[in-house]
């Protein structure tokens, strides 16, 4: 099987990685770069636990090959805090009590950040639609939605 040497920016750091053709971005992040914040849930693009930003847009990292990300800018949950301070959406989730087991949270954070970047003042309906692809089996979503509203206000 073919291997490829790719260069990409992950959380503002330039990385050079050797990847086989069939390695997903998710596997590369977790196993080559040990960025284990991004979670593997369903491996079919449904649960959203593996969501990361590629060039600013959210993508299920289980559904894209690492080699396809050559030259891309990738942001994972580890890249959300800036200058040692949590992203407002992270603070809001903590404050709203939106985290229980936490497995879905990296994906929820990324999808929410992407939503607020493209729409700084979303309605509740828009928040719910933006999080359709992030399944949470603990919270029932109410406090997660509250947290996104809260973050939009800050």
């Amino acid at each position: 099987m073919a291997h490829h040497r790719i260069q990409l920016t992950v959380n503002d750091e330039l990385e050079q990685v050797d990847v086989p053709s069939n390695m997903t971005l998710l596997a590369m992040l977790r196993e080559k770069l040990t960025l284990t914040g991004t979670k593997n849930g369903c491996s079919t693009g449904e649960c959203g636990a593996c969501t990361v930003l590629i060039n600013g847009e959210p993508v299920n990292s289980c559904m894209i090959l690492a080699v396809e990300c050559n030259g891309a800018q990738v942001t994972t949950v580890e890249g959300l805090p800036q200058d040692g301070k949590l992203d407002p959406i992270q603070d809001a989730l903590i404050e709203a009590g939106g985290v229980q087991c936490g497995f879905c949270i990296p994906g929820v954070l990324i999808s929410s950040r992407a939503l607020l970047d493209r729409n700084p003042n979303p309605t509740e309906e828009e928040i719910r639609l933006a999080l359709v692809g992030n399944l949470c089996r603990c919270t029932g979503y109410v406090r997660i939605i509250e947290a996104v509203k809260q973050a939009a206000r800050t």
Partner: protein
Amino acid sequence: MKSDNYITAHPTLPKFDYVKPSSLREASQLLTEHSGEARPLLGGTDIFVRMRDGDWEDKYLIDVKAIDGLNDISYDSTLGLTIGAAVNMNRVSDFPQVRESYPVLVEAIESVASYQLRTRATIVGNICNASPAGDTIGVCMLLDGVLNVFSDSEIRQEPLKDFFQGPGETNLQPGDIVTSLQLPVPPNGMIGKYFKLGRNNASDLSIVGITAIGYPDPELVSGFRIKLALASVAPVPLEVTEVETLLGNAPITSQLIEEASQTAMDACTPIDDVRASARYRKLMVKNLSRKVLTDVFSTLNDR
């Protein structure tokens, strides 16, 4: 392969070679050379699922996204909308002329999976995958969509109406590469509606999908041309042309809409599967066709 995938914590993709040609000719040659063991890769949202499940065992994935022109979307007041094969669904639904002139396409797109999946998924991929459940196919058919297909150094056109041959089966031959989808300028005053019945309001595959478009047409007895297409209830995405005839040839009443909905129910041939029984699907086609046709007709009639 299958059992391995079920027991590993990180279900891996089977082995294949990823190739990223930069020209149509090169891509087409690779696909012809490796006919039966290679396929073009766009968003991969179906390919990767099928490969992980062991259903597809291709040895080569030919990424066609770097080919010139495949990433372009444009609107022209005579040609209509041209959507490059590699343009993802979010880019299509964000495109100003799409929001303005093809709102029913936006509705269909937004019913597909989730926002982050639509960053990868493409309309052309949805069409070429030829799933009877494809959410965006019905509207593209009703709008007289045509695919531009590269093969043997030339481009041929494939109208969507005759494109589908069965589940996953189309007129495409090994070496063919769809470069874009062309959607003509919509008729004046067009109204459209996509209704998707699934287990939940979003993210799921459809149990039944109903697309209807309608517009004023003074040449018809009823004054309106109304077309209906069905998803997930036949081996192929299905346009029920009898509905258009029925609703064109007599003044539209609730009785006539009832008759058209019955026609739609009679035209479909669903199967029992994990999502629903055939019998339920048939009944839902009738009920939801009535709802969607009534919606479209009353919007047209109230203007």
